[in-house]
């Protein structure tokens, strides 16, 4: 149908290797980008600030984690800790008087350095053992952040994000905060879209599939695993900083506890390992599904159709994350990205279903 491939000929390498060879895909991307850019004008402040903004920030974080889990095949159960390091260090750097642009990069770098420590565990152990050591590190970082006064101001304290300027403009109001988050998200997205086409991305894929086979063909698994941890932690730190400055505007240690790590992993798994669009879809489902379900159930309960206590309501998000992870792993291990892909492949050859691509 509209995905028609007729008339698309690749006569040059550059044309063959472009990101979206099908014109409809390019049009979709253009429309989405235009919508994202115009969203503050189209949507009410409520939708912008409490749905679109967190979705974009969490997509950025999910993309960073997906680089590690999807592309490099390393499991990471401590991503929230990495984000916490980025958030706290960026706030402290801005407070020290540096501009936000430098501070966020500094926060990202600090996250990357500490994320690399997580990565050193990956050099010695993998699979289950890596999962458990990153889990242990999540607890460790959590504890340090909440107990060291100089970082968080104590376990009960809230650290306000200071007012900040980007490129000389003061960032105040939902609209400016949204554009800052969007800019970061676009940069990270274009990085990840292109990773698959670089030698770096191919090396990561080789390490993911079989690390000693990668070593035999001359790809150093040590180096590339560490590089994957470095890049993904850098993105995580930046996403954490954006989350702290643009969405929460104040940080407490509980915003980055183990459940948040699991939420990030849920986004990646539900969305689809190793897929850019999957990270967006996964973040959307994991973030919005509990809200939607809560609203629905609350409305039903108010109408008296569904007798349900507060206790059940407050546990719906947990049940939903768990259920989504388990359900997707059992029934669609490649996540929402695969669902999207199936649809697209169906329409690619429609109505000639027998002509499988």
């Amino acid at each position, binding site marked *: 149908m509209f995905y028609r491939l007729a008339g698309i000929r690749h006569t040059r390498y550059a044309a063959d290797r472009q990101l979206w060879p099908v014109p409809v895909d390019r049009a979709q991307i253009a429309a989405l980008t235009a919508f994202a850019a115009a969203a503050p004008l189209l949507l009410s402040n409520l939708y912008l600030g409490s749905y679109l903004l967190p979705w974009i920030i969490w997509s950025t974080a999910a993309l960073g984690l997906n680089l590690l889990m999807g592309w490099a095949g390393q499991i990471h159960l401590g991503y929230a800790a990495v984000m916490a390091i980025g958030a706290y260090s960026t706030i402290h750097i801005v407070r020290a008087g540096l501009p936000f642009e430098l501070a966020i990069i500094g926060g990202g770098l600090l996250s990357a350095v500490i994320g690399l420590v997580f990565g050193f565990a990956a050099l010695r152990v993998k699979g289950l053992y890596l999962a458990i050591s990153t889990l242990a590190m999540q607890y460790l970082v959590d504890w340090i952040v909440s107990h060291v006064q100089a970082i968080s101001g104590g376990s009960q304290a809230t650290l306000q994000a200071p007012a900040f300027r980007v490129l000389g403009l003061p960032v105040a109001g939902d609209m400016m905060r949204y554009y800052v988050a969007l800019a970061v998200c676009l940069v990270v997205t274009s990085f990840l879209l292109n990773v698959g086409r670089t030698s770096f991305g191919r090396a990561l894929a080789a390490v993911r599939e079989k690390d000693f086979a990668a070593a035999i063909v001359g790809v150093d698994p040590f180096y590339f695993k560490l590089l994957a941890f470095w890049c993904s932690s850098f993105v995580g730190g930046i996403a954490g900083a954006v989350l702290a400055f643009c969405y929460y505007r104040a940080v407490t240690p509980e915003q980055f506890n183990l459940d948040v790590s699991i939420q990030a992993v849920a986004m990646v798994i539900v969305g689809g390992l190793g897929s850019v669009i999957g990270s967006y879809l996964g973040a959307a489902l994991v973030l919005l599904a509990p809200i939607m379900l809560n609203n629905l159930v609350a409305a039903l309960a108010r109408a008296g159709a569904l007798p349900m206590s507060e206790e059940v309501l407050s546990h719906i998000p947990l049940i939903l994350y768990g259920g989504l992870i388990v359900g997707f*792993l059992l029934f669609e291990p490649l996540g929402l990205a695969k669902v999207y892909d199936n649809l697209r492949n169906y329409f690619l050859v429609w109505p000639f279903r027998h002509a499988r691509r």
Partner: protein
Amino acid sequence: MDLMYFAELAMNGALVGLMYALVALGIVLVFKSSGVANLAQGALAMVGAYVVWWLADPLGAPLWAAVVVGILIMFFFGRAFERLALRRMIGQPVIMVIMLTLGTEILLRGSAPALWGAQMKRMDIGIGQQPIVLGDMLINRAYLAGGVVAVVLIGLAMLFFNSRQGVMLRAVSDDQTASWAVGISVERAIGVSWGLAGIAAACAGILWGSVQGVDWTLSLLLIKALAVAILGGLDSIGGVVIAGVAVGILENVIPGYIDPLVGGGTRDLVASTVILLTMLVRPFGLFGREDIERV
């Protein structure tokens, strides 16, 4: 630093550690037979505690009946989980299996309080509150009972591994393909190991539930149990006892001396530190087999 203070901390710590070891037993049993990381063990223990509480309190069953039925329910719960979820994951990458058990942990952690109520429930299994006085030491009666029960159960598990069924489990843990070839049903063996993990979870849940009350925080036992399992070696049942005692002692003694200096809260740190140090020095643990695949 008087010696009695140390001895009291160490003694109570060792007993607590044995109760951790009971949770860790479930992780080790499953890893030994199928090589799957059972990150749902903490939540299984929580569900076990909830089930026994539910049988004993709202349904009004006598305590011994509630315990027996609860253990049976958890046995079949473990088997059902293996049959319905994990068997479909055979051949999938290890990330997927880990995430499946972790997802189940979250699912249970959300649904059990939603089903039975989030308030902490008291579960009295007939152990008094009075501490036992031993010389100058005060020993927590509940910990003592828990430690004894844990040792008995782990001993039973070790005996079980010498029975016919247990020999099959050991064969499966050695080599699944070879076990298949000599006519052992690998699926059944793995199912049984999950059932046993369910039993261990139920017992751990009952003991811990009687100590700290039944609510979702029981699932936090996972990280302690992981520390015990990793330190003892993921495929060593005997290692669980030694490592449990070690982790328990460390977890009680270190905060006893350091907490006054840094202002508290170091207890939560011990398990994570034990895990990380074990990973760095001896990833296969004290008694595990040294066949961890390294790059």
